[in-house]
């Protein structure tokens, strides 16, 4: 990576310090992106561009503000920084606002393997070909298909960060996303849609485009004839790739800001057994090749693997440096990176087989969870399970409950952690969950 970003970051930091800032953090980043969409065997949309950003956090005697701009012309930047310092001085002093203690800065000698060295040399025609192949594979699945939009997108992200009390970091990463959304004609007049999409750090580890196209089409075709079924209690199997929605209702209340601002049902619950024995969640920012991997976090604090929940016991919060000071707690890190759940021994098929009356949830539609109380209510779609068999596609249903009882009802885990996401959950079985329908 060129040193331009680091040089610019250091220049901005010195300039701010010389002009009245007491501490400074600067991040300079650049992202190149390509987005291709194919429809009706033609390139429907083609976008290629590069964006830049300079972000600067300014501390003036414990007063704090954060600024960012993509206008990197030097005279504009000078004015931008001077204005930012002037603006910061208006704010109230906050004794907890400062850069982290440098003892948290460590250079980790780990190659996270998140940067595809071949990024710049991949043939653009090959990218279009991938999206065309996905479209073709999807269309070949059925004459009930009325629309397929296939996509290929990629990006390369480079950044340099300096913090004026001794932190300097650089990183470089790539990603690739491929997939398709498909719509089909249902004899009842509706046009169910679904999609399949995957993300990867490397071009060569993308699954075959044919497989993605076929899966996108099959996911959608399975929705033909979907309808709501009776309200009541059902066992719920959540399919691995959509399980993040359920995991998410635990993550937000673990955040230092939620804890300190008393918007968390997990406040004062560290060390307590709150959930099913089967629930263990690890946060591993150092996962090799992971989609959420990083050597240091937004505070410059060196990354570390942590157990967040172990056999149902709450072990850690996500505490950044600022809220750590406010809560008088050791900082961990401010946000979730790669989340790994325990992997079970049972396949999704076996989970279905042992379910007498249940609903396999493979899609969410809106809804929300309340981090203060743990209450949640989500729209869902999927398949009805009767006596171990998938018998009927369902939609227009709602699953509701409270995170504490819901996660205590976790009864079994699949052996299928979803690899194309930073949150790698297996499929999971929950007992006796409230569904709203007819």
């Amino acid at each position, binding site marked *: 990576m060129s040193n331009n970003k680091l040089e610019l970051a250091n220049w901005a930091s010195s300039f701010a310090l010389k002009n009245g800032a007491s501490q400074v953090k600067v991040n300079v980043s650049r992202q190149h992106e390509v987005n291709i969409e194919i429809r009706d065997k033609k390139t429907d949309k083609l976008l290629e561009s590069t964006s830049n950003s300079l972000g600067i956090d300014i501390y003036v005697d414990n007063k704090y503000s954060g*600024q960012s701009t993509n206008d990197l012309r030097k005279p504009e930047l000078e004015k931008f920084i001077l204005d930012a310092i002037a603006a910061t001085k208006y704010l109230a002093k906050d004794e907890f606002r400062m850069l982290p203690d440098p003892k948290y800065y460590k250079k980790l000698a780990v190659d996270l393997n998140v940067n595809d060295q071949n990024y710049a040399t991949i043939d653009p025609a090959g990218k279009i070909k991938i999206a065309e192949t996905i479209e073709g594979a999807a269309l070949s699945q059925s004459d009930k298909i*009325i629309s397929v939009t296939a996509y290929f997108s990629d990006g390369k992200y480079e950044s340099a960060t300096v913090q004026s009390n001794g932190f300097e970091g650089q990183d470089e990463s790539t990603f690739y996303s491929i997939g398709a959304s498909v719509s089909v004609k249902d004899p009842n007049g509706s046009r169910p849609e679904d999609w399949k999409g995957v993300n990867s750090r490397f071009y060569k580890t993308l699954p075959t485009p044919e497989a993605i196209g076929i899966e996108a089409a099959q996911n959608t075709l399975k929705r033909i004839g979907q309808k709501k079924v009776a309200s009541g209690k059902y066992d719920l199997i959540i399919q691995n790739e959509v399980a993040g929605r359920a995991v998410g209702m635990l993550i937000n209340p673990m955040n230092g800001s939620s804890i300190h601002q008393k918007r968390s049902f997990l406040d004062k619950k560290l060390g307590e057994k709150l959930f099913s024995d089967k629930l263990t969640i690890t946060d591993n920012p150092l996962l090799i090749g992971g989609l959420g991997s990083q050597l240091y976090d937004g505070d410059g604090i060196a990354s570390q693997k942590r157990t967040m929940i172990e056999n149902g016991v709450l072990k850690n919060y996500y505490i950044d440096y600022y809220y750590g000071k406010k809560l008088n707690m050791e900082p961990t890190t401010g946000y979730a990176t790669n989340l790994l759940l325990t992997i079970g021994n049972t396949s999704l098929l076996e989970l279905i087989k042992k379910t007498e009356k249940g609903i396999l949830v493979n899609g969410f539609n809106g809804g929300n969870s309340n*981090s*203060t109380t743990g209450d*949640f209510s989500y*729209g869902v779609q999927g398949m009805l399970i009767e006596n171990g068999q998938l018998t009927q596609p369902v939609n227009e249903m*709602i699953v509701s409950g409270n995170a504490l009882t819901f996660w205590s009802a976790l009864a079994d885990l699949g052996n299928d952690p979803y690899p194309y996401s930073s949150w790698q959950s297996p499929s999971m079985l929950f007992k006796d969950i409230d569904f709203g329908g007819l």
Partner: protein
Amino acid sequence: MKELSRRKFLVNAGQGIVATTMIPAFLQNDVDFALGLKSADTGLNDYLNRFGVTEALIREVLAEGLSRGGDFSEVYFQHRISNYIGLEDKQVNQAYTNIIYGVGIRVLNGDQTGYSYTEEITPATLKQAAQTAAAIANSNKKASPVKLSLYKHSENYPIQTSWETSNIGIKMPYLNRLNDQIFKQDNRIIKASAGISNETSYILIANSEGLITFDYQPLVTIFCSCTAEQNGKRENNGSNISKRLGMEFLTNNMIDRIAKEAVTGTVSLFEAIKPEAGEMEIVLGPGESGILLHEAMGHGFEADFNRIKTSIFSDKLNQKVAENFVTIVDNGMNQNYRGAINIDDEGNESKETVLVENGILKSYMHDRISAKHYGVEPTGNGRRDTFRNMPIPRMRNTYMKNGPHTPEEIIASVKKGIYAEKFTNGQVNIGAGDFTFYIKSGNLIENGKLGRPIKDVNIIGNGPKVLSNIVMVGNDMKNSEGAWTCGKNGQGAPVSMGIPTVKVSSITVGGINS
């Protein structure tokens, strides 16, 4: 990456529980700027100077965009300054600023789109971006620079004092007052946070059909969130207002009003229960319930989905979709509304578009590509998040006009159901038509009377079915002033919505099973 970007959803910033998930992202984009930037640009030359370009250069770039045979090219310059100040733990102790500056270049070849943008505006970078976008076509047709003529639009958001002349020090007292008012109202309040975000966007658009136009777009949002504690239980809720106004937006009366709303909305949750799950009658209160129109039909009426036949409404144009007393419009011209625009992001004039008139589906919402496909005039709905995005059909202020019933007779007609009043977010699958929205607060209705408060339930229904199941419409139309942001294809757009009290005869409510 792509996952979220496939969804069509709507969120209300800073509203109750969403506040906790929204604020971090919100802060990243909003910030504050100090004194003394120059005030609003007023003429074309000011805009050309702001972006360091001339009409002659723009004409050359547009011609470059057509150099591979495309049939339309367009430049969209944008300079947007966003500011945010935040209060937490009784002090205004954080401020954020974000500036974006650049130009997006779009080339159309039939329905196909080539797009590129650059953040460095020089003749060389502009032409390079134009060449990248031009590659959507592939022939040797030559295009000559076209003469540009200025389009002057109407003014839907006059302001008195620009945000660029309003420094942090002037805004801070309003947040301090908001905090004081929240704590003063109820001794069960244990935490409060609040913020003001404001932005000013300068846009300049020109295209190969000879149009050149510009717009100055102010936007402001104030929000607060509070947590109350009673007998060891905690509840959180919030309130917000957003408008296209300048500094005159901030008044003590308005501050006192949202403080009261937030506190009342929070402490009432202690009494609230979850309803029984299942299908029932629902009465939607006036104002925020406009979320029904946004989700159940609004997205389905966006013409891009209909052009490719993925909307459940794609074969329903000119058909009866609702009772005679149902009329729904999407209007970009309501003065100073959050969803108002003077021109859309393709330079088309803003207007009122009648979507459903006396129960008949009359029009979709169009961008340039879909208007051409359907052979109709543009409706002024081609909007984009920033210069980095292609315009697509989006809503502006979507609302239902008054009907023949009174709110009292509507509530009295329900034997057993719910009354929904405040919402946080919604979502829709436009092909299957199933849509949801999340009720933050409301009431049970029993034997025609409002009963116990309810909270935190999602509602799910089918768009066309629910549209035809609107059996009563009140005469009390109200617009929501909330900070609604619509998400589509990864792009955000500020929108407004409104509705009178309406009754839907059957819809599925999430809840518990006895």
